């Protein structure tokens, strides 16, 4: 009855496997996620004219759509000092992802574009190779009208590049804000 001897041999293994821990799995800190992008625009001529544009998607890839808000109209013929903050609000307290992006600035670039309104964007920060990053920028609305501004954060674009279409990499954030210029 060798066969049963072999069967006996297996028992320790089965036993080994039945280390039932009824523990529920621990929740995961979703560190990769960016839930919130806030763009702050401060009028160079008038420091109290501050416009914020924000997109916030608290459930990430869940079915709820991001909430996009723009605090007010921009003024034509002036320029704004722009800065961007990214947050991961899934973590508690919210993680400021901006620091990480600034640390890895040679792997990131923010791209700006406007449609329907005439605007100019100028990069104000550069990585160690002298290529633009875009967490700091200047936005200059050239004329009145209404349209939109699209801000795209790309991870690992080719640097330097001639724009978003050919930069490659992968898009981390892309949001289109409706804007009015008066």
């Amino acid at each position, binding site marked *: 009855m060798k066969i049963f001897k*072999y069967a006996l041999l297996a028992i320790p293994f*089965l036993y080994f*496997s039945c280390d039932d821990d009824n523990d529920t*799995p621990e929740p995961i800190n*979703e560190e990769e996620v960016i839930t919130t992008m806030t763009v702050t625009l401060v009028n160079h001529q008038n420091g109290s004219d501050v416009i914020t544009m924000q997109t916030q998607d608290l459930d*990430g890839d*869940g079915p709820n759509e991001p909430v996009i808000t723009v605090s007010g109209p921009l003024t034509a013929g002036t320029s704004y000092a722009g800065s961007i903050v990214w947050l991961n609000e899934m973590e508690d307290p919210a993680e400021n992802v901006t620091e990480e992006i600034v640390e890895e600035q040679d792997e990131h670039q923010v791209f700006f574009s406007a449609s329907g309104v005439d605007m100019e964007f100028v990069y104000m920060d550069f990585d160690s190779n002298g290529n633009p990053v875009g967490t700091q920028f200047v936005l200059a609305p050239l004329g009145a009208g209404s349209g939109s501004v699209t801000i795209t954060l790309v991870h690992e674009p080719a640097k330097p590049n001639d724009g978003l279409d050919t930069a*490659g990499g992968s898009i981390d954030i*892309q949001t289109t804000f409706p804007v009015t210029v008066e």
Partner: protein
Amino acid sequence: MNCKCKKCGASFTSKLALVLYSYFSLCCINSFAQNCDKRLSIQVIDLHDGTPLENAIVKTNDLKGSTDFDGNLVFENLCEDTYVLSISHEDCESIVQTVDIKKDTFRKIRLEHHLNELEEIMIISNNRNNSRTLFENKISKEVLDDYNSRTLGEVLKTVTGVSSLNSGSYLSKPVINGLHSSRVILINNGVRLEDQEWGIEHAPSIDINSIDKISIIKGASALKYAGDAVGGVIIAESSREKLLDTVYGNATTNLQSNGRGGGISTNFTKTSSNGWYYRLQGTLKRMGDFETPDYVMTNTGFLEHNLSLKAGLNRIDHGFDVYYSLFSNRLGILRSSHAHTAIDIINAIENDIPHIIEDFSYDINIPRQKISHNLLKLRGFKNFDFGKLSMRYDFQSNDRKEYDIRRGDRTRPALDLNLQTHSIAFDLESKFENNSNLKTGILARYQKNFPDPATGVKRIIPDYKKYDFSLYSVFDIGLSNDWLLEAGIRYDFSHIDAYKYYRTSLWEARNYDELFPEFVVEDLGLNTLTNPKFDFHNISSNIGLKYSINNSENIFFNYSMSSRKPNPSELFSEGLHHSSARIEIGDLSFNSEIGHNFSLTYESSDEKSSLVVNTFANLVDDFIYMIPVDLMPTIAGVFPYWEYKQEDAKLFGFDVKYDRQYFTNFFIGHQFSIIKGYERENDKPLINMPPVNLKNQISYSIPEMNNLNLSLESEYVFRQKEYPNNNFEVFIPTENIYTTLDTSTPPGAYHLLNFASSIGFKPENGGNYKINFRIENLLNNLYKNYLNRLRYFTHEMGRNIMLSVSYSY
């Protein structure tokens, strides 16, 4: 073979007939003293399969007799004494046994065949088919040797009707009759491979150098192993060890130009005539970046190291073995295939070539996968009168780490799954007198999946425990000389106990809060911890007929019903799948998928030619597949939203393989296969159906010149014209326009030419060398393959020159 022991044929082993003491003694014996009235009945049987042995000579003192047709012999009028019996048979080893006679006695004597005949029996049993009425495609050791630097998926493509679904150059999954992943079951040395086979970018964890033979059953389950093989079964085996005092083995080294790498593989077997043996095998492969004719596919190299050990005792009537194998690799994923959004894919398609092309390198950078698969098997068997009983325990641990391009710490995997599986199985194979066989078995399995939370990324496959229990029975009977019938049934029970954090918003959007409130453990705000539990009861069955028209022609007909429970990915997917740049959503309310497969195969072969024609129709009820249903805006842009659906599907096709020898050493081969698949309700084509393909081969061999063989292969793959249109419009905000994301349209047809040659040498001091020289994609064509998931980002491999030298002893 002229072994009488076998010629007696299969007979009902649980032969109660042995109790029917035969009163017909061939040699009657004179009487001894007066109180000598005891009777000794003997039955001599074949130790291997219990077959009675006729004409076995039994001698004791001055008595001598031989067994009758049923192996029986009676000595009468024996005194109370101890007798020494010597039993001999022309085909078997003689043995001596003592027997104490105190009363009428029955003694069964088992004889073992001569060693050389054992050897033949072993070979026969090794070549036994898994089913007698299902046509099996076989891949021989020779073909495996020729492909020893490749992956399993590529070797399987040599079989008509089998293709592969690739993710780049190295990751390739077998596709049988248009179906793959969870629908194709892989059996490695008797063990069902549990290696997270559901993922399209998960290749089977088998080293082809550890395999000596592969059988492919299309469209049906081998019920002994599984009931859920809606697509088919691939059975990989290493050969049985010889029953001789010998040492044999092989060492192979190969080099190839594309990838600028190669591999070495060796195996060593020591056997002895008393049945003990051990075998060691190891493989090491290393490749750098593969190249298309025009550019380097950056970060596509890999490193693979495998080993396997086997040891055991191989006797005809009992034996056991211990088998351990480790498969491990580290492989790069094309650097430019890292897409995140639909726009990334549009840009990649528009660019035509990858946006990152670096100089050739052996580095395996991020993104990459790191896989290790451990398999331990203990098996024992013993032959009883009622059949061969075997018991198997196996343990598998599959560890998968995927490293992604991510912010922050890249030494940490983005996916870290560990899947452990324990199985215990008992199988009984019985032969009956009327040329019928019964195989029955029982199996219990426990599986545990652990996704490591330290990744910092949402789990794709949740924590789960799965308990399986299966019973099967397969019966076959020869109805006449020409007709063979096989019928089988299998029952599988599965209990799944999973823990998963769902996004609360998704849980509610899918209405799960109303459908499955009992699953909720805790609402944590953003996420909800749930404990989904499922039971699946599945029945699968098989009925087949084989008709032998004559010695060289056979017809096989088979109907097979397979039942497959939804896999974890189909049940639990919930969120963004980065590598596909889409949101994938499973469904907790899925039931099992049932495949009804009808196949008809005609096979004819003679000395000069062979022809196999195979047709099939597979009607799959509740076929689980994914379709795009919507677009979903997220902070990273708009994503296509794909949902798993259950709809009825139908697949049908046929394939032909024809080989013919002309003159004495000229050989021409043809293979053609066509497969169609549709949703049954609206005739919409199914995705990823293999395109029609035609292969032709001419070869010429010169036996006088060291078996020199030269051959030219042509492979023409048509464009897949039938595909579901899953394209959709994507808004490109920076340009304020809509563009079509065309991930559906298949690439064009292509034609490849390959050259192959081999030559063998037998040096005087023994052993033999074989040299293979092969050039694939001889014309260095630039092409894309519909069945490559990365076809949006890259072309296929260019010309590849391969050289392999193998020495066997």
